[in-house]
């Protein structure tokens, strides 16, 4: 197992390097740069080429591509992600500010999704083709068909019209004021968690149905084992593995991918930072964010693989 972990960790390096090269080149291919975004997009009449050249030189954008890449890689090797081309602030600080919110939202949405998806999926499988199953299926199909941001907009509108109230506009950390924090994050967590739960529930239902038809379940039933025990100890352990993959992948996605939902609820998270970075052509920021998201995906996948072995002792890694 130890060798396997070491091998997996080492395999992450070329993957991340590939991501780094790809994002570096892609960003340089798209037209426009941070200097144009800063000085031309506002309709100014008095910008001189001299000022724009000066700003490009400041960010090293006048250097050849290989030199820019080498400088960035050199910084990464020293764990220095550089400064934002838009704000001049350290990248780590820019990300740190938003990370707490995105992480909390991802955790809340994942908790809501897991707490609903697993029992609902099991229930629908056990009560297959009854009204309970149909109700769960309608609930999940509606969840799959409803974009989170649209649901979020409806929530805000409903709160405004019915209660003449909107969630707070500014993020307060949980440890500073839990009530204020939950007032802001509960709604987006529900909106995102619903769609996320729909995916999980359907996966749970189908894998559970598959497992419940296995020979060993029939044997267990024939032996007269208690139905609840068969379900939790024998069926669930096997059925939950694909659900675990779905939930964990969604979690990684939520960390950086909640762009529109964050806009709707005015959440100062990583998704919004991504959008701003792209619209400002803030190369250093986008590069760091892409690497962060890629690392999160790799780490989550790695942890899920480890969890597989823990949940199902038959799985061995070499």
């Amino acid at each position, binding site marked *: 197992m130890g060798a396997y972990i070491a091998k997996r960790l080492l395999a992450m390096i070329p993957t991340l390097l590939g991501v780094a090269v790809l994002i570096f080149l892609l960003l340089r291919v798209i037209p*426009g740069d941070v200097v144009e975004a*800063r000085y*031309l997009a506002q*309709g100014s009449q008095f*910008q001189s080429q001299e*000022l724009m050249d*000066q700003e490009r030189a400041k960010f090293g954008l006048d250097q050849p591509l290989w030199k820019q890449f080498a400088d960035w890689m050199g910084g990464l090797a020293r764990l220095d992600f550089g400064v934002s081309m838009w704000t001049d602030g350290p990248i780590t600080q820019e990300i740190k500010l938003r990370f707490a919110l995105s992480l909390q939202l991802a955790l809340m949405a994942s908790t809501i999704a897991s707490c609903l998806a697993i029992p609902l999926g099991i229930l629908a499988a056990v009560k297959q083709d009854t009204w309970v199953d149909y109700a769960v299926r309608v609930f999940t199909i509606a969840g799959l068909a409803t974009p989170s941001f649209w649901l979020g907009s409806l929530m805000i509108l409903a709160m*405004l019209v019915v209660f003449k109230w*909107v969630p707070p506009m500014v993020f307060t950390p949980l440890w500073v004021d839990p009530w204020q924090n939950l007032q802001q994050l509960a709604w987006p967590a529900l909106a995102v968690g619903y769609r996320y739960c729909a995916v999980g529930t359907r996966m749970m239902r189908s894998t559970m149905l598959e497992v419940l038809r296995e020979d060993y379940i029939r044997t267990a039933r024939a032996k007269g084992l208690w139905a609840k025990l068969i379900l939790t100890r024998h069926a669930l352990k096997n059925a939950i593995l694909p659900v675990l993959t779905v939930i964990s992948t969604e979690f990684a996605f939520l960390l950086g991918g909640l762009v529109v939902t964050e806009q709707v609820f005015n959440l100062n998270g990583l998704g919004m930072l991504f959008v701003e970075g792209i619209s400002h052509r803030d190369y250093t920021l986008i590069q760091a964010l892409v690497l962060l998201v890629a690392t999160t995906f790799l780490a989550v996948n790695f942890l899920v693989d480890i969890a597989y072995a823990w949940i199902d002792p038959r799985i061995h890694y070499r």
Partner: protein
Amino acid sequence: MIESRWLLALVAIASLAVPCVSQAQQPHYGGELVFPVPSEPPSYDGHREETFGLIHPIAPFYNTLLRVDPNDKLGTKPYPSLAESWSVSPDGKTYVFKLRKGVKFHDGSEMTSEDVKASYEKIIFPAPGVGSSRKGQYVDVESIRAPDKYEVQFKLKHASGSFIASLLSPYNFIYKAEILAKDPHWYEKNIMGTGPFTFVEHVKGSHLVGKKNPNYWDKGKPYLDGFRAIFIRDSAAQVAAVRGERAQIQFRGFTPKDRDNLKAALGDKITVQESPWDCILMVGLNHKVKPFDDARVRRALTLALDRYEGSKALSQIAIVKEVAGVQVPGTPFATPPAELAKLAGYWHDIEKSRAEARRLLKEAGVPEGFAFTFTNRGTPMPYEPLGVWLIDSWRKIGLNVTQKVVESAAYFTPLRKGDTQAFMDFQCGYIVEPDLDTYKFLSSSRNPANYGFYEDPVLDALYDKQSQETNVEARKKIIRQFEKRVLDEQAHYLMTLQWHRIIPHSSRLHGWTVTPSHYLNNTLDTVWLSP
């Protein structure tokens, strides 16, 4: 008897109403003003930045030498700020400003003429490596002197009709000379001015907070205890913030639909202020590409536009309204509507106008159904509706136009490279002033932001002439000639419709007047909230 009772009742009601009115006009102290800002300042340095995202949250921390009268709806009247008076020499080349005494920076030190001199030198003559966005606006300034502690002199190369207006720039914060001498970049990451509010905190991407400056030089002000600027990009979330009464105002502007929704939802709790907006979208035509090098073709394109009907329809759905020339309608140098209607594309008889457009196209050898590409910016409001209107108008004179929408951040790359035929261009001014508003149209050798790539020495000469003309009436005449040349005779650019600024705000908010510029009136010293 009955009549006298009614009279008494009316007198009683009136006597009750009078104190109510006067009470309502009496500024109330206290409260925190909360406002969404749709953009965020990249740095805190007003001399370097270009965005209202800096002005809205940062202006309350600073003062400028002069300001626009906060009660002037046209936003053009100079008003004392750190300078309490000013005079001009008979030759119009030297401006002397007498500074207010006893003005303190937030660190307790006194503001003097050295600070004004150092701030303006940073703007006009920046040291190598120091970015100044408005350096090009002050090319006429020869030198700045501070002969004594409370006097500053600007010496110009020649007389100017717009120098005072250029000092009204809300970006020209007065910084402390001592700090600038040590580090000219200090103000990019720090805030320390003489303004009515002092800096509390800025959480990037979230909000910025200021609190009342108890030592503000204008005694009795500010009225507010503080302000909180919340950075909200999504327009629906901005509207929700005002509708949910979490914010009192958004200083940039809302759409007509947002205004109507807010008014319907909140009734008397919302007050709406509107003004023509000193921003306009214009159609640029690349003169290096045939047939747009032909003035007849360009004139035909402007003649195809029914601006008056367009105004009626588009003002219902977009932030545009007034039919305008090179100045915001209603402002001192604007062309009166009757005179404007004589220019090509501004005639009231649209059938006659379009018939002339077809004739010109035929004369220029442009075939029926001629196809070209119109490059538009990927910003929905108001680029999208205006783009649709333009294309529809051009189809009515037999042209076949394809719209190419380019993402906002990448928009200027094809324009700068000249990879366009017809394109949407725009300008926004911090104050309505001919020098600022007409600079855009100068030859591309003088203004790199002229993406039409034309050279017009006649136009350049008219610009210089109006800029140096200090007599208002004489200057107006030159501006009319300039306008006729750029919009009619040569049709270098085609004006669409003037933007229209709509500010629905809480009726609790007082002491703020809408102006044509969303860069003005953000010092917040006169603003107060009723209980």
